[in-house]
């Protein structure tokens, strides 16, 4: 514990010296987030300086081993770093699907060569990745995916279409589920890695009800994917035809992330803030709305305790392996309710789609965005199926 306190003091001093004041301001919009990649530009010098300082220290991916661009922090040290960054409201220096998704998959399934190359690129923010999972005909039933890679000896020829590919139009590379054996549903999928600049790859942004386009349709027309990128750097993660194992591992990881279980305060009660919000708009809370807020806060504060318990149990291996599904289900449904209430408190002000007072329609756009929470990463209905089968052991589930 004394060591941890020393680490905390050192971390605090390091952050004080290296985190520019501009990087301690709340994230206002998309341009404040640095995603990295070949085409990335820095919004300002502070963003650049903050990234470079963190890269040098291994703090873009603090819990990864030093050899792969991390700082090799223990879970306890990583928690201290999060707490200290939170204390000064430090922004994440780098956000990316490489850090959240591909990295964990490579740490678990990757070859040494893949780790050396890809993890270091991710840690330095040099390559921006996107995820090719869902297809028009394969949403909840993901394993039915049809995108096909025909074996051409040293390469595959990939044809098909992905959908809901987050920021595919900005991504450099894709980690992609591709069918490589049409005869075996589960053991006929390969987890491939390839360059989005390859000939035959096109992307088309999808306009959402929120007015934003974070997702794309991604088309593959005779895309040639080499099977290897060099010594010990295969173009697939794990084993050929066993990509479903990797996908399942990552889905579990994604559900944990979406459930908000790995931190954040979006689960705290909102009633008091809503009363102040109403007051700023010249109103008071309707008694029935106040009652709904109170019932919501009961559920939200209880869920926060559940999140704490879940993390405590994960650390010591006590959590049921399917428990992230329950966290994802409860957390996303709660977040949808939260934004319904925020909209109700805001009244006609929250309907404004484009206005300065709402910073470009934030309440309504955020409200609409939350409707995807219980769809992406596995729908609430799929989560309930998994709980029924794996936790309650119900028949035929």
């Amino acid at each position, binding site marked *: 514990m004394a060591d941890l306190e020393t680490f905390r003091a050192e971390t605090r001093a390091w952050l004080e010296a290296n985190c520019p004041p501009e990087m301690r301001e709340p994230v206002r919009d998309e341009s404040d987030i640095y995603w990295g990649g070949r085409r990335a530009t820095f919004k300002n010098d502070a963003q650049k300086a903050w990234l470079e300082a963190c890269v040098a220290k291994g703090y873009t991916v603090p819990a990864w081993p030093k050899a792969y661009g991390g700082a090799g922090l223990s879970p306890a040290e990583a928690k201290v770093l999060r707490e200290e960054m939170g204390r000064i409201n430090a922004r994440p220096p780098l956000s990316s699907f490489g850090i959240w998704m591909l990295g964990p998959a490579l740490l678990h399934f990757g070859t040494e060569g893949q780790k050396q190359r890809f993890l270091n690129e991710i840690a330095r923010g040099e390559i921006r990745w996107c995820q090719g999972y869902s297809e028009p005909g394969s949403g909840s039933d993901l394993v039915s995916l049809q995108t096909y890679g025909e074996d051409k000896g040293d390469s595959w020829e990939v044809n098909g279409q992905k959908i809901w590919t987050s920021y595919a139009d900005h991504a450099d590379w894709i980690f992609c589920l591709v069918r490589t054996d049409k005869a075996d549903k589960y053991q006929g999928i390969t987890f491939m890695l390839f360059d989005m600049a390859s000939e035959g790859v096109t992307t088309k942004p999808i306009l959402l009800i929120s007015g934003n386009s974070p997702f794309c349709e991604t088309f593959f027309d005779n895309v040639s994917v080499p099977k290897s990128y060099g010594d010990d750097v295969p173009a697939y993660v794990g084993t050929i035809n066993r990509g479903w194992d990797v996908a399942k591992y990552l889905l579990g990881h994604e559900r944990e992330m979406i459930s908000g279980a790995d931190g954040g305060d979006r689960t705290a009660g909102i*009633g008091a803030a809503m009363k102040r919000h109403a007051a700023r708009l010249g109103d008071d809370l309707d008694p029935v709305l106040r009652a709904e807020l109170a019932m919501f806060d009961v559920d939200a504060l209880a869920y926060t305790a559940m999140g704490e318990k879940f993390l405590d*149990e994960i650390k010591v291996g006590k959590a049921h392996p399917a428990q992230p599904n329950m966290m994802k289900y409860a957390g996303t449904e709660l977040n949808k309710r939260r934004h319904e209430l925020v909209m109700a408190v805001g009244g006609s002000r929250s309907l404004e789609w484009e206005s300065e007072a709402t910073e470009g329609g934030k309440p309504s756009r955020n409200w609409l965005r939350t409707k995807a929470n219980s769809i992406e990463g596995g729908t609430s209905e799929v989560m309930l199926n998994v709980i029924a089968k794996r936790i309650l052991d119900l028949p035929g*589930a």
Partner: protein
Amino acid sequence: MPLYHNEDQAMLADTARGFIAEEGNIAKQLRHWRDRNCKDGFGHGLWKQMAEMGFTGMLVEEADGGLGMGHVEAGIVLEEIGRNLTPSPFLTSSVLAATALKHGSDDLKGRYLPGLIAGDSVFAVAIDETAKHRPSRIATRAEKSGNGFRLTGSKSFVIQGASADMIVVAARTSGSDEDADGITLFAVPKDAAGMSHASVRLVDSAMATHTRFDSVELDGDAVIGEIDGGRAVLDAMLLAGRVGAAAEGVGVARGAMDMTVDYLKQRKQFGKLIGEFQALQHRASHLYSEVEIARAVTVKAQQLLDAGAPSAELMASVAKAKVAKTARLAVQEGVQMHGGIGMTDEYDIGLYMKRDRALAEFLGDAYFHANRVAELSGY
């Protein structure tokens, strides 16, 4: 502190689970005493056994002959009591009254604690005066009378009031009905002249009383804590009781859920187990999720209370409200998914529904505590 049981607590949970399932199960206790129309509504034999297990005095300080344990431990016992619908004086005597007596004089402790620890005595608490829990308003009055007090008024929903060897009574010694100050707590012995009980059996087969105090003369040493300063003791007692009731409610919810999920795996209709129907699977999974969350926040409230954290007040109300909502869901889904037999007295699931109703009402229902969450949060 991690939000799961440490080794000692896990051992206690194993012991409590085995003991209460064996000795406190529905057939041996709830149905047994109910079917005999028992005037107490619980068995003194089991209470004595619980004393031998060390449960009755678990919250009592070691210096006073107890085990000096905390609310996490008391909650472990209460969850098993809830799961087995065990009628027992544990919550009122070992949690509520024991918490009040912590603030009592050495004389009061010496008079009452040994009987509690030995399982020879049963205590009740008299707080409510109307049909809803509203401890902010106390109209029962205690006037100065010689060296003591004269108590006048009435209380309702006094669980096991007619069986109690002592009743903790919240009365007003100054000010008006709605004042926060001016409250004094009294330990009223069962043979106090002028105290009368109208016993009533409740929906869950528990016995409660409407208790009247007609110029009941009390010695000055019946006072628990400070004269006019009883609100703090009352609040401490309510806090402990609410966290305890939440733990018992988690047990009720889990018991009803487990019984229902088992039933889904046995009952066949349309040629298959009804647990194969997705319509029921999703409802069972949702219930599981709610029960897990309710249990987590209850343990959180227990830990905060044991740590003496100011936020225990808020978290106790969150827990009481969340558990009340969740146990309600569990018993309603339980009866519905059992179908017709869920309506029969022969099956136990209906007993869970009855117990939930009474337990949720005790010390404030989900509405009361959600409102309290709003008030404590500043809106």
